[in-house]
């Protein structure tokens, strides 16, 4: 898929522009910058947290492994560090705490302690909230969950598991046919 099509599609799906898709300058003070840089060095536990968030959005099913198996948590860390501007990096990092707090509020448990059903209930609610927010936010800051979801989708479907198990992959098709039969359930080409 062409990158611009991809960006457009992810934007459509999450109800806004793709985060990190635009460059802009920031006015961070240097101590704040240093502080942010430290916070962006995610701990193994934080990566597990992101893996579990991603795996709730895209879990293992009978058809294919989920986002955790595709190491989406580590991928998110790389992307936030390398491709996000500072204000979005901050939202992302704060977002992990916000999500944890929301989980405690809803289930009286931390996200990692919650059951799969509890996690799904929480993220279903936040997904709705983030979508509504994105539709009316205008120039306001991005919603942290929108970042989690965009990176989960990109990280999963562009991973080896995404290409080979969730989708169908052929590195060297060798020919093009513009009209082949399709049966419901057949996988899309990666």
């Amino acid at each position, binding site marked *: 898929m062409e990158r611009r099509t991809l960006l457009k*599609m992810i934007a459509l*799906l999450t109800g806004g522009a793709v985060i990190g898709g635009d460059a802009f300058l920031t006015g961070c003070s240097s101590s704040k910058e240093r502080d942010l840089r430290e916070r962006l060095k995610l701990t193994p536990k934080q990566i597990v947290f992101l893996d579990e968030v991603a795996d709730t959005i895209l879990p293992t099913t009978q058809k294919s492994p989920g986002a955790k198996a595709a190491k989406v948590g580590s991928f998110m860390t790389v992307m936030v560090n390398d491709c996000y501007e500072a204000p979005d990096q901050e939202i992302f990092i704060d977002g992990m705490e916000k999500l944890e707090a929301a989980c405690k509020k809803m289930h009286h448990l931390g996200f990692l302690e919650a059951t799969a059903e509890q996690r799904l209930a929480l993220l279903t609610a936040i997904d709705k909230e983030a979508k509504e927010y994105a539709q009316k936010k205008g120039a306001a800051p991005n919603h942290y969950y929108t970042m989690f979801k965009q990176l989960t989708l990109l990280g999963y479907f562009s991973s080896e598991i995404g290409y080979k198990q969730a989708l169908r992959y052929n590195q060297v098709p060798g020919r093009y046919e513009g009209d082949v039969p399709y049966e419901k359930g057949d996988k*899309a080409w990666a």
Partner: protein
Amino acid sequence: MEANTYDAIVVGSGISGGWAAKELCEKGLKVLMLERGGPYEHVKDYKSALREPWDLPHRGRTTTEQKKKYPVIHRGWAASEAVMDGWVNEEDCPYTELKPFTWWRSYRMGGRSTLWGRQSYRFSQMDFEANERDGIAVSWPIGYNDIAPWYDHVEKFAGISGSIENIAHLPDGQFLPPMELNCVEKDVAKRIKREYGDKRHLIIGRTANLTALIPGRSKCQFRNRCWEGCPFGGYFSTQSSTLPAAMKTGNLTVRPYSLVRQVIYDKNTKKASGVEVLDTENNQTYEFKSKVVFLCASALNSTWILFNSATDIWPDGLGSSSGELGHNVMDHHYNIGASGIVEGYEDRYIFGKRANGFYIPRFVNIGNDKRDYLRGFGYQGSASREGWGREIAELNIGGDFKDALTEPGQWTIGATAFGEILPYHDNKIALDKERKDKWGLPVLAMDAELKENELKMRKDMQEEMKAMLAIAGIKNVNTWDNGHAMGHGIHEMGTARMGLDPKTSVLNKWNQVWDCLNVYVTDGACMTSSGCQNPSLTYMALTARAVDHAVSELKKINS
């Protein structure tokens, strides 16, 4: 032969430079090809081309650091992790935008020939007559019959796949078998034909991807990863095609890191004696001598070299006596079109990745069709099934959501228009003498914009696509217009135009600089009008034609 002396010097190694080198070498001349950037070797240097997509750490996205380093490239859709090395270092090579101008540059061996769109269309007699008929700018000094045999010549070597259509204003060529329209595109083509008869056509794109074998190269493998460099040589580039042919003659010397600062003009002979080169690695200056010089440094950079040449005779540079050097900048304006949803075809799909789409040739201002603007536009587009980034009704998260995304979505179809831009004298580039690049050389200042004719055309570019999609039964038709800064079409041209009169043009009908006949300019700079077709094929044909002329002139001198 004396050191640093050749029969011919070719400045630039892109599509035009590669052709000039191949043709000159094959005619027996000793040739020096100068490339301002570094080497980029066929196959060996295509670093990502055989890696898997998931091996890219950012999966195709660019980093904040790259966004700062390549701000111009990030204005469009060309910023992609695997190809960032191919774009020019914008900090080292700035330019001034008196008006917005998006300049996509690749300074390395092969130039933009590894990064081009590969769409290859002939200009027609209608295009060559356009200026004269409309009383615009100056007339082309050549007609279709002058260039037709050269189109044949370059198409056979480059390998252009396409269909024979018998459309007078989009001449057929020496085609390899056409790629296939997909099932939706075929039906839309039928509906357009039913509605518009022979007035409008939806055809498969004509592209420089091989659909049959050409010696030394492999067929297109339908990976759609052309920009990473094709390890199969499946599309035309300097690396896959013209460079190996030139090397095979034993007549070619390639010198990378060679920024040509000026053509050296000899007052006594009224000819160029060679070029002056700044070595961008060691900052030393070298002179190379030759009987003939081909400037193929890209439209704006060939003009930049002329601006800096023979300034003791002509303060504004070699070729400036006409007052037209640097003027008449053209491009194709796009970023505008329509798309919609296709109902049905749920039981149909595709196999393989076609690095091509459909083409709808120009239909406005042809025959009885008259508009309130001059010239016209064509469309490029495709139909496809949506991928994993789409919305799924009622599902936002969880296993069912994921499984639904692993299947293809509904079919959509869309196209963007490419419109002709007229040559306006006051759309120009000039030297910004206040601002210097990394090597202390003055940079270009861009001063060009779309004018009334283009803006009027843009309304039709959007509305006509919308109307055609509606007629073809497409639902939820959306239009878009993202505006167009000059240069964004990557078809910049016109700054050293050809013409019949040295008073109003920079080049004659053989692409020779009127004021210095052994200097030929055969890249986009030479164009007298822009047509709306992708222009690279025309540069190839004009280059081969100019080489044939140059060599016959040299023979006359020698005999």
